[in-house]
């Protein structure tokens, strides 16, 4: 097994709340500078920049998983992480069918679609920051059906977290892991870590600007960066494991 440093939650300039500097080349270079071996690109409710960041990463030597940070109807954020762009685009299709409203760039920010050499290709006009009409149970099962992994975001935070929105993690929800935010502390939970129901824990940067990259990551002891290996590491199967940094 090799120790891969992974950050499963990074935004690009497609997310209205992210800095415009979060272009494919900037993201990839900054990640390599910080010693990351792989990342997942997870913009809000869209995978439209994943292809560009994947290709920029492939050229410069960073493995990039295509992902989406999905906002459920309960306003719970969760990551959907896939092996290939087709799976992410299929998930995006389901999201777009259940996402209403148009973005107001002046209020929420621009949603810039770029290519792998940082050229602007267009602007996404949907209200990506909004919530979908999909409930969290449906989201987790659709992500699994498409072969991805589903991680509840920043569960230590009061906003947009499964514990904040639903009070506790529903016992029959088949999440693959929960994410602690970069400033998250395991001991910070009222009622202790048992509120996480024994789910595997990862930590990630949730980077919205280049300076955020590297502020948190997770070590995956796996053979190669792929969804199946990550799933095994989360479940501590066949010698795979994770360590949160």
């Amino acid at each position: 097994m090799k120790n891969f440093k992974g950050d499963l939650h990074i935004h690009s300039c497609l997310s209205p709340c992210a800095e415009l500097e979060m272009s494919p080349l900037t993201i990839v270079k900054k990640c390599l500078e910080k010693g990351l071996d792989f990342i997942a690109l997870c913009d809000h409710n869209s995978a439209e920049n994943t292809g560009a960041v994947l290709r920029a990463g492939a050229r410069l030597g960073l493995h990039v998983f295509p992902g989406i940070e999905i906002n459920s109807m309960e306003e719970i954020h969760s990551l959907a992480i896939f092996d290939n762009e087709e799976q992410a685009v299929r998930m995006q299709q389901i999201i777009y069918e259940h996402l209403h409203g148009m973005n107001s760039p002046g209020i929420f920010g621009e949603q810039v679609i770029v290519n792998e050499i940082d050229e602007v290709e267009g602007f996404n006009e949907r209200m990506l920051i909004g919530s979908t009409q999909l409930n969290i149970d449906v989201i987790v099962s659709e992500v699994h059906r498409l072969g991805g992994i589903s991680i509840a975001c920043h569960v230590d935070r009061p906003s947009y977290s499964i514990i904040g929105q639903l009070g506790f993690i529903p016992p029959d929800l088949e999440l693959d892991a929960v994410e602690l935010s970069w400033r998250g502390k395991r001991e910070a939970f009222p009622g202790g870590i048992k509120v996480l129901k024994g789910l595997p824990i990862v930590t990630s940067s949730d980077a919205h600007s280049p300076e955020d990259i590297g502020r948190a990551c997770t070590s995956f002891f796996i053979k190669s960066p792929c969804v199946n290996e990550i799933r095994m590491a989360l479940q501590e199967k066949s010698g795979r494991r994770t360590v949160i940094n």
Partner: protein
Amino acid sequence: MKVRDIQSEFNLELAAGSRGLDRDVSDGYCGDLLSDVIANAGSGAIWLTIQSHQNIVAVAALKDLAAIVLVNGHRPDDGTRAKAEEEGIPLLLSSESSYRLAGKLFCAGIDLTAV
């Protein structure tokens, strides 16, 4: 005042939990963040929310709430209905907003906190 009285007075549709219609209502609460409801709702409260996930029934049971009203036309899924039925907690539906329905309930005298 009983849940049953409020249901008929305000024309609320009963989605599940008819067993609990004779519960006493002594307070009210509005909230869509379940962590906030757990922290702040008082027992015996009728709870107005747009959150329809089945966790609402567990929260209502935990806090001994009198009933749940899904406002703004939100509908419960089968899982939420089944839980409410199982716990005997009335799950009522309203097309009005939390603000409007809470205003009417307040005027009807459900305001023990102000006594």
